[in-house]
């Protein structure tokens, strides 16, 4: 167990370094590069006096390393802004105020995060069921017509961008069949049933795309495991096919799938942005697109940092899960 703890610690330190480097690159890209942050923050109707105040408030006169240091301080310890009449406290992780709405970016994130989390987690459950199921079926029916049909289906699944699947589902279920409502977000705490019904289409759109990848991986991983010596031994002992596949082969085949699930969060975020925009769900993705179009730098920076950090964390979780699930992995 000591080995595992040490391994985890090393991975955590490495992850911290990655997040730190990410923050530096992101800060340099979005605050230093082109344009004048003060002018953007001040808005279109801005007199020179206001501009000077904003510049002071954002401490843009400081050298780069000091500005970056303030940014890091805000992330770790929070920040206090003077608003003229009083002090606005921005709790850690503080990304500053939105140029557009003057709201604290942290508040915006807190508002949007549950939507994206609902979308992502629900879709994940669905695509794991779909993907692993399809993969298993095509591995066990190897060489038959079932396998060929499933192979083509998964190929079509990977080839269809999520916004096309989503549009197709919308047209089918909301316009022609009228089985489902046009999605609007209902918080889980308000009404779990409505929450699920409204998210059903976005979940399906995301899951159809992602499950194709999992079907392929499950299939190849399963075939590989089935070819291993210990499976042949179990068969030779006379275990039923059901026991061999269900109890032994599946256990060997699943670790890569578990690992991919966590690592996949990165590409999932991208597709979640598209899904949210298509279905009009007020999540992080929609926030990002809007912020990009209005050059709302603090919001853009925040979404990039949050998604980047989430991916780094998910990678650690994946590594640890993989190490726990498959003890053959050397803990280096």
């Amino acid at each position, binding site marked *: 167990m000591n080995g595992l703890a040490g391994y985890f610690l090393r991975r955590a330190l490495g992850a911290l370094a990655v997040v730190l480097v990410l923050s530096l690159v992101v800060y340099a890209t979005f605050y230093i590069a082109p344009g004048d942050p003060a002018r953007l923050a001040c808005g279109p109707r801005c007199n020179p006096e206001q501009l000077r105040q904003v510049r002071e408030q954002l401490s843009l006169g400081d050298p780069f390393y000091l500005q970056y240091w303030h940014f890091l301080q805000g992330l770790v310890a929070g920040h206090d802004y003077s608003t003229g009449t009083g002090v606005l406290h921005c709790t850690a992780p503080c990304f500053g105020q939105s140029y557009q709405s003057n709201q604290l970016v942290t508040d915006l994130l807190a508002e949007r995060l549950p939507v994206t989390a609902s979308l992502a987690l629900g879709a994940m459950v669905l695509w794991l069921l779909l993907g692993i199921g399809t993969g298993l079926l095509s591995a066990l029916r190897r060489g038959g017509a079932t396998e060929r049909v499933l192979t083509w289906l998964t190929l079509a699944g990977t080839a269809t961008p999520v916004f096309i699947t989503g549009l197709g589902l*919308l047209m089918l279920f909301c316009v022609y069949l009228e089985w489902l409502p046009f999605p609007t977000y209902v918080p889980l705490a308000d009404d779990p049933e409505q929450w699920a019904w409204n998210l059903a289409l976005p979940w399906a759109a995301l899951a159809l795309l992602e499950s194709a990848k999992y079907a392929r991986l499950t299939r190849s991983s399963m075939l590989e495991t089935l070819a291993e010596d210990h499976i042949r031994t179990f068969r030779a002992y006379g275990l039923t096919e059901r026991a061999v596949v269900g109890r032994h082969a599946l256990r060997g085949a699943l670790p890569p799938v578990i690992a991919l699930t966590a690592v996949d969060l990165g590409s999932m975020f991208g597709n979640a942005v598209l899904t949210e925009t298509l279905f009009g769900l007020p999540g992080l993705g929609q926030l990002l697109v809007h912020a990009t179009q209005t050059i709302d730098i603090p919001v853009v920076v925040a979404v990039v940092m949050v998604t980047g950090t989430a991916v780094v964390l998910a990678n650690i979780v994946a590594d640890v899960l993989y190490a726990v699930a498959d003890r053959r992995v050397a803990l280096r």
Partner: protein
Amino acid sequence: MTDTLATPQPEAAAPASGARQVWRRLRTRRSALAAAAVLGLLVLLALGAPLLAALEGQDPVTYHDTLVDSARGGVPLGSFGGAGAEHWLGVEPGTGRDLFARLLYGARISLFVALGATVVQVLIGVAVGLAAALGNRLLDSVLSHLTDVMVAMPSLVFTIALFAVVPSDFPRPVLLIVVIGLLNWGSTARLVRAQTLGLKKLDYVTAARLTGGSPWRVARRELLPALAAPVITYAAILLPSNVVIEAGLSFLGVGIKPPTPSWGQMLSSATTWFRADPMYVLMPSLLLFVTVLAFTVLGDGVRAALDPREASRLRVGRAGRRKSAATSPEGGAA
């Protein structure tokens, strides 16, 4: 570079015969050939867009107010989105612009951006991968970590974000190529590094090093020709994802700007029309789907044709399918 091409090197013979062998295997895969034919047609349509639009007698930017029903919010008059002899695939709702011409011009953008971005990705990926594999331990460690981060990061999110600060007066397609290329080279670099590490152990590369070739010379003369096959395969896999990224960015409104037509952007405006004018949703969706599917099938075919293990597995699989449960060990590392 020209002297290498002019005088055939003995070691250059290996990749050449390899290419012929790959072509022979690829020819036996009907799905890959069909995909190649579809893509060929698509490229012809894209290249001949001005010609074909002229043949139809339309262009992608002229408004036709008389062809849309302003009383119903701009739905095209006539059935199937106003399709007919004058406008082969109908007109765009709201504006009445010719759909056929816009789709063709959209194909130009889609293919141009996808190809350009793939070139940028391959150039960066090969450079970083080679440097990591040939450099000292520190360089390898730094570049490998960078590559890992690039692979794991939510690149579409970063790509969207970057459009908040890119110069707005730059030609949009070129900007898309650069941004997509800069943020999505990680997997190519990883592939090149792994392949190069394998090649470095081969006798002919060692011989070239021992006879006094500089690292640069070894990379150029011995490694790059051998890397061509895997890199080309990988490029075939990158292409469809680049098509999707471009369409996605334009769909979100941060990619190609109007009035330049692009499939993603058409789909985005189609989301407000799908009740009244399904034709307008159908056409760009279908084109995008067919394009990506064709690229994916072709990429799959090329990969299988380049992988001798896969090729022999296919043969064994046909002869006796019970025996061939062993697949490539890379399957788990996808």
